[in-house]
């Protein structure tokens, strides 16, 4: 009889559609809210699905037109074709979704979480014209674009006591190479997610993605989402993330962008967010959510929704037209 609190329940979208990407992958897309309102596009992270945005959608949908995507291989989208686990294809997916859901003549705010944010950066590099045509602003939540496995800040528990971050920093340099290799092997192996004893898997997922303050409901919801990910998708993107480097694409993301990160993020620690914010052509804000982990749309929906709303307010007028047309064009 224990049922999730209403806040976590996904709303029925106003419309569902299937978008076909450049390489033929089928993407399931939901549209919430009313046509004619400013559009927000939400792109989830690795091993998650549109369901991960449920709490954010509840906060945005009444006033905004919210488009939620299932990334390739995730949720209700089709399986990933062979060789389909590349940032370029994630960028193509986002391009196809924007072309299909953002009415021409209007521009949208694109909010990406983790791998969804990486898709936005890659999209800026690969489809720069479409970026300027359809995107008025972006949110990069809990993400990184390089050295993803090397910078992972695992909090080790020794004798039940948490080591301080300072101690960890000292050890880090010497251990980085070895740990990256271990992480790569472990995260890239679907056995970790699907063959190990369930309580162990759950503990590992919670340890990696959730802050110590997460409620049992949040922990359960998060681990369920991750466990729903097909092993093939899990492994394919793990390999992609291990070698990902989008530093060349970041300068081309020349629309107003807010960066958001949880201070307790162990998967993409604030180091990434600060680097990105520093390198962005048009940074709006760097929001560090105190005591939040990696799953910010799940555990910090108020802050994420507020960041999206802030971008809508600064970048779009009431009809979804970009404010000060042309201002997004690079000098």
């Amino acid at each position, binding site marked *: 009889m224990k049922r999730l609190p209403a806040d*976590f329940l996904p709303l029925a979208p106003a419309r569902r559609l299937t978008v076909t990407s450049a390489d033929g992958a089928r993407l399931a897309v939901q549209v919430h809210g009313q046509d004619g309102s400013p559009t927000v596009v939400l792109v989830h992270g690795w091993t998650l699905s549109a369901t991960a945005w449920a709490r954010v959608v509840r906060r945005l949908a009444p006033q905004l037109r919210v488009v939620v995507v299932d990334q390739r291989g995730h949720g209700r989208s089709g399986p990933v074709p062979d060789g389909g686990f590349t940032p370029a294809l994630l960028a193509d997916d986002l391009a196809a979704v924007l072309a299909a859901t953002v009415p021409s003549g209007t521009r949208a705010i694109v909010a990406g979480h983790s791998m969804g944010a990486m898709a936005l950066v890659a999209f800026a590099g690969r489809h720069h014209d479409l970026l300027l045509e359809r995107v008025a602003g972006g949110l990069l939540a809990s993400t990184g674009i390089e050295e993803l496995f090397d910078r992972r800040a695992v909090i080790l528990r020794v004798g039940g006591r948490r080591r301080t971050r300072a101690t960890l920093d000292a050890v880090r340099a010497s251990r980085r190479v070895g740990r990256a290799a271990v992480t790569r092997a472990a995260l890239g192996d679907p056995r970790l997610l699907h063959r190990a004893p369930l309580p162990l898997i759950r503990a590992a997922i919670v340890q990696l993605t959730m802050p110590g303050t997460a409620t049992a409901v949040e922990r359960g919801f998060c681990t369920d989402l991750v466990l729903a990910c097909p092993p093939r998708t899990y492994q394919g993107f793990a390999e992609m993330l291990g070698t990902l480097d989008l530093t060349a694409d970041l300068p081309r993301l020349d629309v107003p962008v807010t960066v958001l990160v949880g201070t307790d993020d162990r998967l993409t620690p604030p180091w990434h967010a600060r680097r990105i914010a520093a390198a962005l052509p048009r940074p709006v804000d760097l929001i560090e959510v105190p005591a939040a982990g990696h799953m910010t749309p799940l555990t910090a929906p108020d802050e994420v929704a507020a960041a999206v709303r802030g971008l809508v307010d600064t970048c779009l007028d009431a009809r979804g037209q970009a404010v000060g047309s042309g201002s997004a064009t690079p000098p």
Partner: protein
Amino acid sequence: MRHVPVIVVGAGFAGIGAAVTLARAGHEVLVLERAERVGGTWRDNHYPGCACDVQSSLYSFSFAPNPSWSRLYSTQPEILAYLEDVVRRFDLDPRIRCGVEVTGADWDETALVWRVETSAGPFTADVLIGATGPLSRPKLPDLPGLESFGGLLMHSARWRDDVDLTGKRVAVVGTGASAIQIVPQVARKAAELIVFQRTPPWITPRGDRPVSQRRRERYARHPVTQKLARGILYTTRELLVLGMVHRPGLMRAVERLALAQLRRQVPDPGLRALLTPNYRAGCKRILPSDDYYPALCQDNVELIPSGVARLDPGAVIAGDGTRREVDAVILATGFEATEIALAHHVRGRDGHLLADVWRAEGMQALRGTTVHGFPNLFLLVGPNTGLGHTSMIHVIESQLAYVRDALDTMRRCGLAALEPTDHAQRAWNARLQDRLRGSVWATGGCASWYQDERGRITTLWPGTTLRLRRATRRVDLTEYRVTRRPPGPAVAAVPSPAQVRS
């Protein structure tokens, strides 16, 4: 005017069972069936996937075992074929008239007979047996725009076999017993299937499988082995009553079983949350299914967690405002289960319609069978005889023993009429309602078709089926007002049903 000693209305499981039981006891029976063939619920419901929720070895007459059930849970065509086979086996054809609809039945207090109006002319009968069942009248939701929808619109019990749903956008309204059988079938064909859910049902593993040829042969050669299987099924199912009636907390065990299956079959926590019931298992009917949840996870299937508010031309609009354009709407909205169809046609001693008598306080009877003010009327699957846990056939056979004993007693003692006293009926229902008070149906925290519009549970039997069997073993004449047959020639020149038929 033709006189028949016993008229049975309806040729479903109850009507056919009545014909067999009473004919064996030497009573002249005529069964009137409004449709062109027998079968009742199992004739009317022929939607794809239609099957029984109770294992067939249990969901069959004790006096007519069928060793050749092909599956543990038989599908509708097989159950219908079984009923037709029973008709053949017991040579009931001369006792059943199909295509005859009963349009009215009035008790004649002077002649002490039922005057039965039918589409085939008037009859008189000493005894009238209502076997129309609670699941015969489809319940159609009173939705605005139902007429203007324009597309295909059908109730699950009025399935149109000529319609092909391949490639169509289809809405299913409801998530009850019919819906969860329809959804997996339609999901295979439809381009889009949208399921509108007001309240999620508890769904337990069904574990359906074919019965092996070897086992069927063994059942045929040694009927006692099938009896044994039947006994085991009966006993395990009967255990559920403990939880349902006496200790609703015990239903948590069932919930754990159901939640484990939900977790296994629905990976997405969002969809899973929408499918998790928030009331005690058993409060609404527990539905066994292995393929409902997987169907909902298909790409072309969508669950809308809201009831339907109205229809527009070509679209369904949910209570939460969600709008879906569809080509066809399937109303899996169940039946008028808190009413008995016959009640709208039967007038008792005072000329009151049974439906009107019941309108005041909800339907009620003595021992689920007889009603004060309506002499010589016996209702099969009458008020408070329904079950949430096992086979209705057991109940029907219990009631038939009661009816048979009543008829035997009347014949033996020369009684013309039996009518339960108001006192006996009230006392019986007070006891029933008292026992229902603590049951999961009253305390489980849900609304269900077990309750009438006043929230009174008038459909279910609160106890084991053995208890009902004991309660209906013999007619207790102290509960009845009896009228002796007036002196004079006994029933003269009664045509046999065979003659009536010709």
